[in-house]
């Protein structure tokens, strides 16, 4: 199977690979997939707790080139979006942007799941620490 130029570009030059320190304020982490399925994505967002804007995002992915590209693209798109805007990213947007073939659609679904999991984790952490979330 030949890969689209965009998938190849993200694979060769993945954006935002890495992890944030665990104590980073405004952190949200999503870890989705399973090793036995051949795909695991870890996607992290660093949110400005005052404005709700995602200031930075990082990923690490175990998976095929399309899975790496999907998560790399997701981190690019997340940066600068508010958490509410981020929740609107759909797997189909990723499919269209990367021109993923049908057999690779699950990679985009996993990336959407990773975004949702990171957002949910962020919200959970903020709810657990309301003082920090509402500080001036």
């Amino acid at each position, binding site marked *: 199977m030949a*890969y689209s130029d965009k998938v190849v570009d993200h694979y060769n030059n993945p954006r935002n690979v890495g992890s944030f320190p665990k104590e980073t304020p405004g952190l949200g982490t999503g870890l989705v*997939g399973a*090793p036995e*399925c*051949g795909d695991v994505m870890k996607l992290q967002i660093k949110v400005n707790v005052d404005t709700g804007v995602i200031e930075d995002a990082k990923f690490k992915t175990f998976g*095929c080139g399309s899975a*790496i590209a999907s998560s790399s693209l997701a981190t690019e798109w997340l940066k600068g979006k508010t958490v509410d805007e981020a929740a609107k990213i759909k797997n189909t947007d990723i499919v269209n942007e990367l021109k993923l073939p049908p057999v690779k659609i699950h990679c985009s679904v996993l990336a959407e799941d990773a975004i949702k999991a990171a957002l949910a984790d962020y919200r959970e952490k903020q709810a657990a620490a309301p003082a920090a979330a509402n500080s001036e």
Partner: protein
Amino acid sequence: MALKFPIFMDAQSTTPCDPRVVEAMLPYFTEKFGHPASRNHPFGWEAEAAVDSARAKLARLIGARDPKELVFTSGGTESINLALKGVAEMYREKGNHIVTTVIEQRAGLDVCKRLERQGFTVTYVPVQPDGLVDAEEIRKAITDKTTLISVMFANNEVGTIQDIAAIGRLAKEKGILFHTDATQAFGKVPINVEAMGIDLLSATAHLIYGPKGVGALYVRRKAPRVRLVPLIDGGGHERGMRSGTLPVPLIVGFGKATEICAEVMAEEGARLGKLRDQLQDMILSNVEEAYLNGHPERRLPQNLNISFAYVEGESVLMGLNKETALSSGSACTSATLEPSYVIGALGASAELAHSSIRFSLHRFTTEEEVEFVGKRTIDVVKRLREMSPLYELAKEGVDLKSIHWKAE
């Protein structure tokens, strides 16, 4: 010597034709185009002589008593179909049970599945972690209804070579026919159908530097005389077992490829085995948690199969595919979206099955190529591990099995 890209190291999927093979074939497309069944003119005689000569070369390579015991087919898949379906149907009165293994190639397994739908029963014997089938397991699986044992000679993914002679002895002792899928072993390692007690043997030309589209099935004629129901009816060619005009140029090519293999087998096997060991040592000594799949000694000299923990196979291939052609047991590289059932059958976790890479060397592989591929593989695996959440977790001391993964 300058490297020429892309480097082909996927020689258990297919091989390039040896130029000597192509040269031998060419006249049979144009001036020597006769039909070998045309008994009344020189064109036919010439074609028949060419086919007979090729048949004799195949017979010699596997120690068959009589060249007539070789039937030409369209390839390995057809040979396996003919052997299994042909025997199952012919001996149906005697019994309806077949014993095979879980690591047969798809053709073998798929034929068995079809036979099961047609009322036959099949026992799929497991393999040990090193890929070897224990003949005792086969003995246990045999019933009074068993008519055929089918075990591959050498595995296509991990290259493990079975103790064919032991299985052959068992088959003789029990009076059951024995087929071996030797598509990966034919021309690569010594085979003797008499000494090994083989009754039927499948082979193909394109894995031994011959053309695609031609294969052969050895069908024993004496002690015992094996009979088959043909898959294809027609003019009664090939002793009635496989009708259809023989593809003379392809058969001539198969014969030439076989002849060359017979000449160079020992030397070529030693050379490729040395290069393979070099590649293996290079990778295993530079990459932690890289695991050799299959038996470390009893395997084809050109095969190397390694699982790299924490990285997925297709992503490794993608990092190499501009320069190097390899294959992986990753689900993403298979049509079924399942990871390698062969690596799985050796007891490896699904994760490691997704992470397996097969390197297969061939006649034209050079030491420079091996060095290049080894170095690049190490680089790519290291780069992907830096990107892998599993590697990160493992480095932090987290037991990956302790995590509750949400499978899709």
